[in-house]
């Protein structure tokens, strides 16, 4: 068997700028590339690829506040969900080394959570994997009419008040949850790993 390299090099992708932020967060100066920086770069890449961890912060993905840490006050009832990435607070590295780490984050009416869903929410703020369990498209929208999280690609819908169960569409498995907690009075943190297998 013969395999050709692609015309361009396709590396394992992570956001270079974010990694550099992470390296700076570790206290290593940027600029000239040294063996130490190479190791730090590799470490940062490894951290970026890890799944969300207990204690991670959440950061905006895209838009004007890309990379900023999300606070509870950033989320309002009735607004479209945010797509977020976890951030390792000790290194400052945003864990965007895999798109399977994308999180959909929104605030809904907390009175409607069922008993199994309520733990791991913060005053109506709830987080799910943003990767659809059907064909792995990003679950980025809120369908107001159906009151459900919605996948644009193939139109599966998920119920946020009932642990992300499938409302309709081609998906057959619920959207995995990501538990949240407050650190201190006002810091939103991840409280554990995804509740199930991410993606399809």
């Amino acid at each position, binding site marked *: *068997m*013969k*395999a*050709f*390299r*692609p*015309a*361009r*090099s*396709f*590396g*394992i*992708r992570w956001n270079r700028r974010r990694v550099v932020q992470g390296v700076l967060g570790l206290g290593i100066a940027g600029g000239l*590339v040294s*063996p130490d*920086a*190479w190791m730090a*770069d*590799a470490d940062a890449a490894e951290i970026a690829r890890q799944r969300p961890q207990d204690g991670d912060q959440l950061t905006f993905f*895209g*838009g004007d506040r*890309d990379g900023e840490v999300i606070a509870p006050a950033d989320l309002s009832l009735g607004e*479209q969900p945010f797509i977020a990435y976890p951030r390792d607070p000790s290194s400052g590295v945003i864990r965007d080394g*895999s*798109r*399977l780490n994308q999180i959909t984050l929104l605030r809904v009416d907390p009175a409607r959570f069922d008993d199994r869903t309520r733990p791991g929410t913060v005053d109506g703020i709830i987080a799910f994997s943003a*990767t*659809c369990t059907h*064909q*792995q*498209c*990003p679950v*980025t*929208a*809120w*369908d*107001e*009419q159906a009151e459900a999280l*919605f996948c*644009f*690609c*193939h*139109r599966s819908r998920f119920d946020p008040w009932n642990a992300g169960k499938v409302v*309709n*569409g*081609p998906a057959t498995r619920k959207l995995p949850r990501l538990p949240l907690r407050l650190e201190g009075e006002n810091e939103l943190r991840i409280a554990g790993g995804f509740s199930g297998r991410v*993606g399809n």
Partner: protein
Amino acid sequence: MRGLLTGTAAAAALLALMVGSATSANAIENYNPVTEDRLDNPEPHNWLQVRGNREGWGYSPLDQINASNVGSLQPAWLFSTGVQEGHQSPPLVNDGVMYVTTPMNQVLALDAATGKRLWRFQRELPEDLFQLHPTNRGPALLGDRLYVALTDCFLVALDARTGEVIWEVAVDDYQAGYYMTLAPLAAKGKIMVGVSGGEYGIRGYIAAYDAESGEEAWRTYTVPAPGEPGSDTWPDDDAWKTGGGSVWLTGNYDPETGISYWGIGNAAPWMGDTRGGMDNLYTTSVMAVNVESGALVGHHQYHWNDSWDWDEVSPPLIYDVTRDGETFKALVNVARNGHIYLLKPTAEGPIEFVDAWNYVYSNVITAFDPDTGRVSYDDNHWPGTGKAALFCPSLWGGKDWPYSAYSPDTGLLYIPANENLCSTLEGAEEKYVPGELYIGVPIPVILGGFSLREGWDHIGEIQAWNVDSGEEVWSKDFAHQNWGPILATGGGVLFSGGTNDHMFRAHDAATGETLWEYPTNSGVTASPSTYSVDGKQYVAVQSGWGVDAERKQDVLRGIIPGYDVHVPQGGVIWVFALP
């Protein structure tokens, strides 16, 4: 060190992705190699390429199954593909061996008479891959090999006798949003493919690979770089780098001139004002590409500065048309923008505009320049960034990707059309992030923007047109959508599915009368084919609902009061024959 890191990572990625495998229970003996002469002059008993011939007719001269006996058609055998999502690929048949591609990077080789599995290939998808269109529209056969363009943007050459991988090449980076849905085009010793991903802000192209070695021969972009011909139709910024122009379907090919004709998708992002309000060549165009050199030798842009998501995905059909007493080789295209285009190719490449007219209700295009075919727009129906506008047909167009067909027996062009559905879009600023959706219209706006025309009484249609006279001969209505590619046969029968009631149907090619229908497991959005083995004719099609048919079904549930039909997914290959 950065170079080392990138190289190491790339090598790791490539190794990790080399995971295709074949299970070969029955190597095929006495395989009849598919020569280019056979592709140029296909035998009636085989179906060697996605539309049956180079010219894209979707026609077979077989007539054992015909209008007088098709009512007796019954299943001969079935084969479950084992995967979900949109099954769109026609079964290809070469002397009793059937090849079928499915979603999830799968290729099946089956005995065309019995359905017995001969081999199966599947290339594992990367764990982080997501795509809007997880489908495949067919393989290509050449020599003793099968070529397939995959969802993770790999092109793979398999041994058609065993399914073993001969070579594979990463055409582009799936993580940057590049993928492939089309069947490759095999001609002049080359395997040609095109990339999809306009909704991710890719820069589209057609690429050719040496059929023997897999080495890239040429790459022709659908969006020119600064200084290249057509670049003056783009603003003086970086818009061209993310300009879209996907290539969703196999080009048709004229062996006499060595020119292939490709339908090019819309530009990215969707709203035209983000691209300077300029023409944005060669998006929403037909590109004429010399197969030997890759040179762009001609084009015609169906509509400029697309702002309606009207990917002009279809390659034009090539057949003789008579106008004003002159019979000429024509390019006939059923455009997503709701119009039929009659064009005249030249041996050198340039394409002349002859005529165009609408086949569904259209409120956007108001006029065609009689000499150049350049369209004028009604500004009231032209959306932009911060400007909402309602337009018809909807963003799925009068006809989306499902193939039209041409029958030389009736002289008619058959169109799987959709009428009465409209869209409202309003763009919003969006930043480009590699590998993420780059549409420029908020998703809730897209989803909430569909509407039916006042007084609507149906959506789906099959239309039959005489392009010589420019007249519609008959039209058949379906209550809801039609996503069914059409097969025409020498038996005077059209085969097509496309509706949400699971049916696969036969229609009289002369009148449109439904002669036979059969309820399948799911919905039929695949292209049918027909062939014969030992003198017995079969009709084959995959049933497996998904992709845009699923999306449109969801839209209709939201806008038709009380309508709540769901179509189950899951693929089955159906093969029908007379008793």
